[in-house]
């Protein structure tokens, strides 16, 4: 497998904990959510992150993030985690992708792009292929992120791992192609099953620009077995951005970062929930990255 020609960012600040549950103590999650309740506070954190050397934000679309980015009056590169499956959908029997989105301000352009995405994936779209459903949902959601700021796409782990378990090789090919073409940047996948994903991608010959997965000395989130995940990190070919560096809050950020880099991660993806001093701690991670 050749080295991908597109370069994934190496230091990325994740804001996803503001919108989706992450592995962190509940008190800590509540504290961070309260700290960034006002768009101004989130905007200040984003500026500090960029000034400290973060190359992008890892984010899901949300009114809070949009408001913070509007405060800044300057583009902030976003690595978009899509599709965003609303938490409330877990009260429904159907899968989220079968539940229509309730967009209060429907965007004509995103509707058109969703149609174009379906046409571009013929005949898969006639067969109800997952890739088509995901691409259409992404088109609707990217509009609320401000697509001019999006420098890349990471498929959300719930979708990645579903397609992975089903052995759907074409899904991965199609999403890489779609993500690169749509946003003119990098395309990859977040997963909770890194070892199996890396093995399958090599077998299938699919080369995403990056993968995102948990890496920390405690092995938290490194499922099913930390040793297998370490081997996947060390396998050359597909760059991995390491997340959950503090292992759900049980370890120190620097230790997690060193562990991830020593085991072969290309970059680091700390979340707001991992950071007390956004600027200072990201600067320290930047130094570790060299």
């Amino acid at each position, binding site marked *: 497998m050749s080295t991908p020609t597109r370069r994934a960012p190496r230091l990325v600040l994740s804001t996803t904990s503001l919108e989706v549950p992450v592995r962190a103590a509940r008190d800590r999650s509540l504290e961070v959510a309260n700290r960034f309740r006002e768009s101004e506070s989130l905007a200040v954190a984003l500026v500090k992150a960029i000034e400290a050397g973060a190359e992008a934000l890892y984010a899901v679309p949300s009114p809070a993030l949009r408001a913070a980015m509007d405060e800044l009056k300057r583009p902030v590169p976003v690595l978009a985690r899509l599709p965003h499956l609303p938490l409330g959908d*877990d*009260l429904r029997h159907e899968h989220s992708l*079968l539940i229509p989105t309730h967009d209060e301000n429907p965007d004509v352009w995103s509707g058109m792009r969703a149609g174009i995405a379906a046409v571009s994936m013929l005949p898969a779209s006639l067969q109800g292929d997952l890739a088509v459903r995901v691409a259409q949902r992404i088109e609707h959601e990217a509009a609320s992120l401000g697509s001019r700021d999006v420098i890349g796409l990471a498929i959300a782990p719930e979708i990645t*791992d*579903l397609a992975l*378990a089903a052995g759907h090789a074409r899904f991965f090919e199609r999403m890489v192609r779609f993500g690169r073409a749509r946003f003119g940047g990098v395309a990859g996948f977040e997963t909770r099953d890194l070892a*199996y994903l890396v093995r399958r991608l090599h077998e299938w010959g699919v080369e995403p620009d990056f993968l995102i997965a948990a890496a920390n000395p405690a*092995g938290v*989130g490194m499922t099913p077995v930390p040793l297998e995940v370490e081997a996947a990190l060390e396998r050359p070919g597909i760059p991995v951005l390491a997340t959950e560096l503090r292992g759900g809050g049980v370890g120190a950020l620097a230790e997690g970062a060193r562990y991830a880099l020593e085991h072969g991660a290309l970059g680091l993806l700390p979340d707001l929930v991992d950071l007390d001093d956004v600027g200072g701690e990201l600067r320290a991670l930047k130094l570790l990255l060299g």
Partner: protein
Amino acid sequence: MSQDPQDHSIPPHELSDDRRWRLAVLGLGRRGLEYAAAIARDSGCLLAGLADSRSDLRSFARGCGFQAPLAVSLPRLLERGPLDGVVLCLPAADVPAAAARAFEAGLAVLVPGLPAVDVAGAERLRANLSTATRPVASGIAVLTHPLFARTAHMLATGSLGAVRSIRASVQVSRVFGPTSLPPVGDVLEHVAFEFVVLLDQMFGPAVATSARGQRLYGSGLDEAHVTLTLATGGSITFDCSWSVPGYPRTAMVLEVECERGRVLASDDALEQELDGAAVPTRTVLAGLQEGHALEWGEAHATLQAFTQRLAHGMTANDPLDLARALRAVQVLAAIRASVTALGERMEVLP
């Protein structure tokens, strides 16, 4: 055959040639796909079939890439090849009838979540259990949660002395208006059910309840304040709500006062305060090795327990005991009746 209809295992010589459990999933909604994925990823299992009467759900499952035989019903699926067991991920109202068909076909059955929506459904399922010849199990992920397992062990060993009082709560941020209400079910069904099963496992069955509740956005309950009277004579007070801000993940909290100390247990952390000790001991989920199975998802955790059951039969205080889940359905019915009767005590049907 064992006397308990749930207590069977499958002899190894009856397995498929490659010694894997041939499992099918009935019901291809969100939970069904999670189980299909978990089965497909488990090296000890073979995803041998998928079925749903809804064509949109079948089409979605195929679009996800699953290549297992796909059918509209269990009998049609059985025409395509042999099965060892089936996971029923149907809406709860459809589970009792589907379980009866699976028992008749001689299959092992796993029922994740709520096994029936009402007392009649629970009774129907219980009555049919005697026809089962293979393992029948309930899949309640919280019963495999390592922090609650430690709590149960701590209380059972008696190091803190007898239990004096139990307070509990379960809350999540989901419903904040009529538009966020699910099409079916109330807070008891969606949020409290699994917690009631956990309380049954830890403290024994409830025999009566008195409850007050609020209907904020529709005809179903959005909040409830409940007192459960236990068969042992003690009681548990618990609150449940799906309209509390700040809880993207369901927060289950249990506070137990004992003769010689106190335990504060949740899905997040476990704190033990022994009388006279300078500081409480605190254990967090992320710090536990045994938490890894749960990190991979609830379907993986319960599937692991189910395949253990298939191989070895039921264990003492088995987390997969379906009788406990059926009792919880009766408890929810008694809570609803008590709320309607403005807090009057209601017996839980045995």
